[in-house]
């Protein structure tokens, strides 16, 4: 263990001042479920680490049509809320009980694929992230946050402090497909949210996990749904488009070929849950 300094700030201003003082060499850790394994294994050798567990960023707040989630709210807290069922599904399908008690929503946004199952749901929900530095604060759509594998728009002096989610008014679908029923990395994760007007789809969000360098939108697939009544042809077209546009990789869990195939299969299944007459889950 080479860590010389471990800071546990008691407030956001204190955390931001520490970050401003130290600069990018300060490793920021929330629940520790991603960072600690790297430190334990000697793969990360930081001199200074800041833990956010005591920084008071763990609140969940529901205000007219919006769920605001503090960056260090745990996945267990997400599982226990009922404002946004898709986020409950996402939390339920992430890791194990002990890890959900530790891992945070903010941290999940920085978990490399095939992890980051909650981030996939947040992307489908049009979440906004709030980034703060000691001197400024700005909001960014999650859809614009990622720039590549493990890269994003967070500046060196910024912390992600909260995530805001518009509470959906129509049913949503979330499927994580892994090789086991629980505590398993994703082969592919699919999150879908649709807007309807008079039986036709007016807007669509299809977010995919574990088939790209970060959670991605399947924008071609989304376009196939607009104006349709979500019949079998529209579903098949969207599923095929999603399989085409995703950017899967090969790892110990699955090959890129299999991930692409399963992307088509599970986009179709998620859409079928939302098709008229399927009795969607709501929320």
């Amino acid at each position, binding site marked *: 263990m080479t860590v*010389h300094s471990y800071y546990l700030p008691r407030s956001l201003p204190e955390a931001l001042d520490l970050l401003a003082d130290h600069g990018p060499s300060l490793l920021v850790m929330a629940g520790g479920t991603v960072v*600690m394994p790297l430190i334990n294994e000697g793969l990360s050798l930081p001199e200074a680490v800041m833990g956010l567990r005591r920084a008071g960023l763990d609140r969940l707040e529901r205000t007219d049509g919006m769920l605001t989630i503090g960056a260090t709210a745990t996945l267990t807290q997400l599982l226990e809320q009922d404002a946004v069922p898709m986020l409950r599904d996402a939390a339920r399908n992430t890791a194990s*009980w002990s890890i959900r008690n530790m891992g945070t929503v903010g941290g999940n946004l920085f978990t490399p694929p095939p992890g980051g199952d909650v981030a996939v749901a947040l992307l489908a929900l049009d979440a906004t992230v709030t980034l703060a530095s000691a001197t400024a604060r700005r909001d960014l759509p999650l859809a614009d946050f990622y720039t590549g594998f493990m890269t994003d728009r967070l500046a060196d002096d910024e912390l992600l402090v909260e995530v805001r989610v518009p509470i959906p008014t129509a049913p949503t679908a979330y499927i994580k497909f892994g090789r086991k029923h629980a505590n398993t990395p994703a082969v592919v994760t699919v999150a879908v949210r649709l807007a309807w007007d008079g039986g036709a789809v007016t807007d669509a969000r299809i977010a995919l996990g574990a088939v790209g360098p970060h959670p991605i939108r399947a924008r071609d697939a989304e376009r196939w749904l607009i104006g349709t009544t979500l019949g079998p042809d529209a579903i098949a077209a969207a599923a095929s488009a999603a399989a085409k546009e995703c950017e899967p990789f090969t790892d110990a869990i699955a090959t890129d070929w299999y991930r692409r195939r399963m992307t088509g299969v599970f986009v179709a299944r998620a859409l079928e849950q939302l098709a008229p007459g399927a009795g969607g889950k709501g929320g």
Partner: protein
Amino acid sequence: MASTIVTFELGDDREVEVMVRPMTTLQTVLRNQLGLTATKEGCRQGGCGSCAVLVDGEPMLSCLLPVEDVAGRRVTTLESLTPTEGLHPIQQAFIDGYAFQCGYCTPGMVIVAAALLDHDSAPSVDDIRWALAGNICRCTGYGPIVEAIGAAAETIGAGQVEEPR
């Protein structure tokens, strides 16, 4: 930064104070400084569950917890769960049900089972499996473990044994 002193509650009635280098894990403190070796060191990656402890009654993995993070909080290990006389009903059920072979995963299994029964005194088989999803056993097989936890729930529920916590 020099070593610091961290104080936390151990079980229900003991306060401990340890001097640690920055970011020493709770696992290392328990095993190497306090001599409490029921908490096992398995993968140190958060993947095996053998180092599970309760923090304020909720299961967490001590290999992923800098001990500074639990300052002022209550940590429960298998040692603190075990009564002075006899065994915890879950421990007894593990013996009665042959729910271990090598025993390495057992402390983590019992800790998580204790937390489960605290939340839900009559869990279904699915509930038990769900709770144990983060605890890996490589020799017993999960069947006897799940059955033992169900049996312990019945024992505690029937009031045959007071849950000694």
